[in-house]
């Protein structure tokens, strides 16, 4: 069974769960999907335990009775036994975020460039791309998205009240890190060169980026 099919089947299982069981199960899903395990094997396991939960639910049991009162420890046990993500998949996952953000940066760059050209605006200025901006975008998007993923995983299995407190704390840290990245970018901007990229070149880079996304990362 393909990963896409398994995820579809998983959603179907979730539709049949009681609210209490669904909330318990969804935490398990977030935890396992955000762990660095073989994706196919992880989905297979989620499908298996989801189906088990439905069978037990039909007999009047709750998720806590089936998987225990400490879901985090239980999921840790499962993740320890699952095969780890392969090196290539891990690399794909790390490259994907900067790749996508740069691809869409060049899309915006191309559109703005064309509009300015057609309206007779300052083309020279609008086609400038700082090397520091590219580094900032690639690195910054990577750090910020990795942080969100990590926090999402840490937030699972926490009671609602605790989760809200953690979210507020994380939001503060997030803003501080974003500011540090921006300040770093301005400083870096003084050291690194500025490129002149014509709108049509930006468009070509965007198309190549989009094709690359489809080719290298489509299974993600």
């Amino acid at each position, binding site marked *: *069974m393909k990963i896409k099919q398994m995820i579809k*089947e998983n959603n179907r299982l979730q539709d049949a769960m009681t609210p209490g069981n669904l909330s318990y199960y969804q935490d398990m899903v977030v935890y396992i999907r955000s762990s660095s395990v073989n994706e196919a094997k992880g989905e297979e396991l989620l499908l*298996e335990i989801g189906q*088990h939960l439905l069978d037990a639910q039909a007999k009047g049991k709750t998720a806590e009775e*089936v998987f*225990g009162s400490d879901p985090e420890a239980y999921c840790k046990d499962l993740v320890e036994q699952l095969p780890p993500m392969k090196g290539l998949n891990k690399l794909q996952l790390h490259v994907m975020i900067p790749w996508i953000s740069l691809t869409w940066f060049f899309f915006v760059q191309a559109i703005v460039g064309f509009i300015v050209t057609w309206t007779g605006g300052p083309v020279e200025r609008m086609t400038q791309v700082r090397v520091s901006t590219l580094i900032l975008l690639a690195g910054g998007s990577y750090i910020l998205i990795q942080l969100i993923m990590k926090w999402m995983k840490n937030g699972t299995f926490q009671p609602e009240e605790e989760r809200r407190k953690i979210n507020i704390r994380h939001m503060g840290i997030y803003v501080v890190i974003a500011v540090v990245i921006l300040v770093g970018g301005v400083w870096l901007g003084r050291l690194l060169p500025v490129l002149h990229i014509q709108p049509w070149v930006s468009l070509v880079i965007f198309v190549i980026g989009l094709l690359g996304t489809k080719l290298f990362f489509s299974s993600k």
Partner: protein
Amino acid sequence: MTTQSQMLKGILEGCILALMKHREVYGYELSTLLENSGLTFVSEGSIYPLLLRMQKEALIEGTLRSEPGAGGPPRKYYRLTGKGQETLQQFKLHWGTLKESVDFILTSGGKKHED
């Protein structure tokens, strides 16, 4: 891990291998079979980390597929591998010896009857 829980895990692993000896079994079915056999110390969910470890050690292998007769939900069916068969044989042998020794101690207090 305590010695007791390690021992129980070993026994549980042997029982799982035995239940898969003649036919394929899926997770929920396995937990029901264990429970019906009186192994009530086993919580339902605890079989999954064990099944994953047994797959890693190549004692069993599993296939995800829909139940025969179509339309059923996809389940993962497990069966023994050659290595699993051998491990089951060893378990039976060890269990037989252990059971005999423990029974002997419990019934006679460890003393052989003298005629």
